[in-house]
């Protein structure tokens, strides 16, 4: 009985939200109504602009994926280097912070001048957004290996390479995936924001950020809402991908996936 109610609950709250949406729209003055398109108008706008939105989603997904993959790969390499000694960490960390502290709005014009507007800039911006949480988490994981396990490996006369590959890297996986979840959430946002500032429509290369500028300049409220929905969907796909990868790698052994009685 309770289970069926739990299943129905999200559907009910969704219907409630849509109902509320219509109610707010009705409460608005006639001249303000264009600001809030009705749900069915959004659906219609989605259909009308489907080719443009679909292309923008593909472009943004490409930028987000490439930036994300570069960030994950390079952050892993850097984390391995950083994990080698505390001295290397104190030498590098302040500069990593600079990366994280500089807002994209400031970086975008520089990148446009360096690599030109479009996909390249979007990839770099996504990379910069994802890189920091990945490095910090993975490094933390690599240096948090249980002291006794390290002693155990030393007793077994393990080489440094064996210690890293067979002990430190697998032990760091939960931390790595924490970073990956954060980066996975940030990647599509980074790609879309990056596209907003540094995107280009040249050769049909505009993403969701660029499309937002186009629709807002044309006062196409329904299309803007449809673009927002598409952005949201892209974000969900990324998070779902990362969550599945994390489940695949950890559910056998990690406590965070153990079934509890409560």
């Amino acid at each position, binding site marked *: 009985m309770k289970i069926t109610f739990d299943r129905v609950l999200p559907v009910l709250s969704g219907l409630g939200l849509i109902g509320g949406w219509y109610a707010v729209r009705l409460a608005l003055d006639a001249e303000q109504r264009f600001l809030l398109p009705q749900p069915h108008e959004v659906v219609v706008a989605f259909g009308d602009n489907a080719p443009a939105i679909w292309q923008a989603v593909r472009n943004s997904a490409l930028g987000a994926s490439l930036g994300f993959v570069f960030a994950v790969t390079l952050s892993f390499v850097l984390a391995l280097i950083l994990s080698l000694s505390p001295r290397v960490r104190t030498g590098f960390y302040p500069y990593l912070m600079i990366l994280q502290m500089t807002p994209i709005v400031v970086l975008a014009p520089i990148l446009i001048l360096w690599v030109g507007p479009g996909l390249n800039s979007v990839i770099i911006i996504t990379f910069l957004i994802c890189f920091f949480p990945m490095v910090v988490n993975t490094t933390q994981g690599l240096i948090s290996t249980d002291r*006794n396990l390290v002693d155990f490996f030393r*007793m077994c*006369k393990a080489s440094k390479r064996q210690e890293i590959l067979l*002990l430190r890297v*697998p032990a760091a996986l939960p931390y790595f995936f924490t970073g990956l979840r954060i980066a996975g959430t940030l990647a599509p946002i980074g790609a879309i924001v990056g596209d907003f500032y540094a995107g280009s429509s040249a050769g049909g290369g505009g993403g969701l950020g660029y499309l937002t500028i186009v629709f807002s300049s044309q006062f196409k409220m329904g299309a803007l809402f449809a673009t927002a929905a598409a952005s949201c969907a892209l974000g969900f796909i990324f998070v779902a991908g990362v969550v599945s990868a994390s489940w695949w790698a950890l559910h*056998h*052994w990690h*406590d965070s996936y153990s079934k509890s009685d409560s």
Partner: protein
Amino acid sequence: MATQPPVVSFKHVAKRYGAGPLILDDISFEADRGDFISLIGPSGCGKSTILKLISALSPISGGEIVVEGVAPSEAMEEMFFVFQEPTLLPWLTVEQNVAMPLRLRGSKVQKRDELIAKSLAMVGLAERAAYYPRQLSGGQKMRVSIARALSLSPRILLLDEPFGALDEMTRDHLNEELLAIRQQQEWTAFFVTHSVAEAVFLSNRIMVLSANPGRLHEEVRVDLPYPRTEETRQSREYQKLVAHVSKLLRSVERLRDQAPAAATA
């Protein structure tokens, strides 16, 4: 018998960590092949440190240690450590965990499988080979840890309070199992514990240490015959020895409590 050199010998060994206070002072003893030596004493007396020195996990600050005729760092292949915690790799199955030392030391795969099966059978966990550590109870995890140590057929086994976190029933049971395994595999054991009963049940020699700094206070010989069983625990001799060692332990603890007062006087 008299001609056999000692397996482990300590000569005036001292230990301090960095510039810190002396942890161990003037420790001298010899262990013969097949000895089961328990180290007991108040916390901070350096019992676990002695194991770390034998295994070369930590360097000495003075004196000399000889293991199987050579320096500890050269004798690492001869010994294995069983830690306070099971220290299993949680992402590997029981079987893969037991295989790890063999894998790291580069033994052949075929021989490896045989050794794994044998050591898992010894601790009664052959049927749990495919389990992950988190699916096991505390006692079972410790058994895997012991199987992992045994797979290398070490000549010296260093056990650092391996059963400290377990309930008394499980602990008693594992003590009996450990002695049963020792009848199949010859090794010299150094066993750190806080439990007097456990020390008397397992060992033929008990070294009582005093603290601040850790010194050898007294050695007690346990001449109860092996194999020891539940009946051993009921025997009068066993209980007399437990009472004796407990008394020694209390006197060392009193000594430690008085030490700061004596220093200021």
